[in-house]
């Protein structure tokens, strides 16, 4: 019992870890009760803004290496659920909150083109639940709580992806595919949790970490780890388990694609990182060897194969979805190097790629508002008629390639450095090769945008639509110049994870 907890003395500041998660959770049902289209947009935007504000406060609080803990319901950790914020999850909380805020600005002007008006309230409600889930996964230090929030976010994601059906019925099968794969992933994950609980009798990450140290030869723990890696591999679209991703990203509404591409897979990767470093012992041979023998080759295959496939795609949303798979490969590669630099590059790339891919998908969404589809041929000559959107797309594209001065360069450079330091020359060469493939598929689009004659004249989209796109594009440049937010926090995070 928590009788030793001081009675009713907590200030609002102490509640930041939980407020981060429950703000969107509180607003979601209110939207359904009020059932007003404009009000629901406003409330969700304000909620996301509040989340952003809280996440900035949290990042400030943990940037000196300290750790914030919060006991839900006043129950002390091994029994109760603990929320634990350190540099590693603070940066992801920030990424998720800021992307959701920007995406909601975009949705104000674009959502009506994709979803009928009477569904908007429920759409926003679902969006907020997805946000709750993602934030919750990142904030919590209780492994079963991770599962619960993962399911909250996944279930709402399936619904959100299916909303693309008003434009293209294939969204339904894409969503159903995702539902099946995602559920298998979640099942594997929860079986893994079951095994861990069986062997250690605990669900709290810190508590398990202590007990697992004596159990590194235990088969149950090893099986649990395998299940968790496969489960999360499905959720983060690790290469042989990625089949749900391209269709889900292609047929979902633009707003959803932006949000998912920037956050969902990263959160799953974060869970994997958290389990490897904070729950299991990364020095154990079964953890180390799995990453070296299995995940590194898979990551490299993802980098190369997905980039090559992307070159041949005519539907640009699908092209970017395959490029996302390649980028997930980079992040997984950084993790599987199993050293501080590699992990730091992985964390930085999560943030940088989040902004980059959101910028790209959002400018595609803006094109789509005018052209009604995103096949490469319908983008002919849009560089002239939609100069601002096209310019933002180019910036995002450069960042995706990793041109110096953009966000993508920083993380790719860190990854290259990490690979070279570890002595993996071949891997380093393949990273560069994969970037060259990215040059091909981005150039293909730029060529169509700027160097071909347009058959039809379109007007530039409204300022309100341009604003979020340009915020993201400017972030792509800003994070390429000022690395204090990403690299410094990531270094702090890796030190905590590698302690």
């Amino acid at each position: 019992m928590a009788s030793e907890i001081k009675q009713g003395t907590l200030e609002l500041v102490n509640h930041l870890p939980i407020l981060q998660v429950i703000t969107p959770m509180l607003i979601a049902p209110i939207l359904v009760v009020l059932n007003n289209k404009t009000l629901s947009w406003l409330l969700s935007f304000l909620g996301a803004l509040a989340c952003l504000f809280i996440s900035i406060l949290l990042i400030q609080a943990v940037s000196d290496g300290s750790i914030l803990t919060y006991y839900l319901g006043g129950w002390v950790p091994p029994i109760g659920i603990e929320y634990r914020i350190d540099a590693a999850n603070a940066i992801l909380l920030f990424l998720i909150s800021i992307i959701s805020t920007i995406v909601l600005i975009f949705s104000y002007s674009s959502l009506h083109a994709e979803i009928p008006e009477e569904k908007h309230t429920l759409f926003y409600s679902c969006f907020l639940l997805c946000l709750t889930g993602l934030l919750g996964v990142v904030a919590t230090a209780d492994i079963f709580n991770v599962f619960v929030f993962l399911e909250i976010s996944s279930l709402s994601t399936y619904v959100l992806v299916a909303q693309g059906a008003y434009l293209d019925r294939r969204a339904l099968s894409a969503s159903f595919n995702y539902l099946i794969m995602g559920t298998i992933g979640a099942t594997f994950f929860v079986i893994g949790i079951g095994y861990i609980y069986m062997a250690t009798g605990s669900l709290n990450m810190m508590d398990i970490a202590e007990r697992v140290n004596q159990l590194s030869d235990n088969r149950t723990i090893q099986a649990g780890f395998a299940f968790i890696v496969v489960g999360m591999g499905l959720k983060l679209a690790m290469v042989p388990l990625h089949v749900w991703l391209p269709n889900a990203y292609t047929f979902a509404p633009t707003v959803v694609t932006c949000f998912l591409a920037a956050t969902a897979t990263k959160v799953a990767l974060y869970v994997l990182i958290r389990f490897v470093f904070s729950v299991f012992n990364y020095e154990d041979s079964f953890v180390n060897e799995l990453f070296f023998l299995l995940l590194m080759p898979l990551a490299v295959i993802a980098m190369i194969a997905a980039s090559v496939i992307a070159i041949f795609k005519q539907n640009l949303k699908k092209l970017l979805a395959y490029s996302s798979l390649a980028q997930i490969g980079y992040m997984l590669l950084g993790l599987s190097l199993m050293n501080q630099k590699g992990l730091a590059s992985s964390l930085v790339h999560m943030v940088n790629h989040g902004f980059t891919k959101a910028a790209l998908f959002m400018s595609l969404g803006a094109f789509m508002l005018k052209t009604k589809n995103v096949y490469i041929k319908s983008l002919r000559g849009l560089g002239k008629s939609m100069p601002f959107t096209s310019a933002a797309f180019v910036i995002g594209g450069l960042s995706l390639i990793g041109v110096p001065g953009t966000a993508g360069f920083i993380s790719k450079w860190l990854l290259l450095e990490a690979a070279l330091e570890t002595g993996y020359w071949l891997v380093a060469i393949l990273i560069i090769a994969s970037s060259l493939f990215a040059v091909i598929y981005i150039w293909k689009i730029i060529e169509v945008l700027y160097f071909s004659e347009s058959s039809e004249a379109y007007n530039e989209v409204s300022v309100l639509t341009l604003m979020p796109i340009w915020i993201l594009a400017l972030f792509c440049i800003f994070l390429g110049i000022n690395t204090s937010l990403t690299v410094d926090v990531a270094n702090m995070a890796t030190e905590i994870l590698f302690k």
Partner: protein
Amino acid sequence: MKHHLILKVITKFMVGVIVLFGLYVQFHGDYSPGGGFQAGVIIAAAFILYGIVMGLENVQKVMPIWFAQRAAAMGVLVYALTGVFSIIFGFEFLNYHAISPEHPKHGQHYGIILVELGVGITVTFVMIAIYYSFAGRTPRLDDKEW
């Protein structure tokens, strides 16, 4: 189902009993097996039974779709606001001591009742909403054609 007189009479009788049993499970959840989820399913079963026997239009007169949707959200709100209540009074989220700081045991008791109430409301109306959305699809065969 115009000719199923016995079914109709029994249903009218059973609906009340089922709801009553649901409420029993709801409010004894903290002492005996049961709780919000089970109670919600039982209460929803009463509405679903009524819907199956009396027809979708009749049950939707009693329980309109818009009400089921909003009430489901209200249940979540009850749960979440219980937690927020604790935060406002300077306790952790969902720390039931906040409800009665002088008598922590009473606080825990009231807290769990409130939270289970929220769960019960949500489960009831979500179950009903799921039934509506399946039953509301246009059937391939008319009832008479069977």
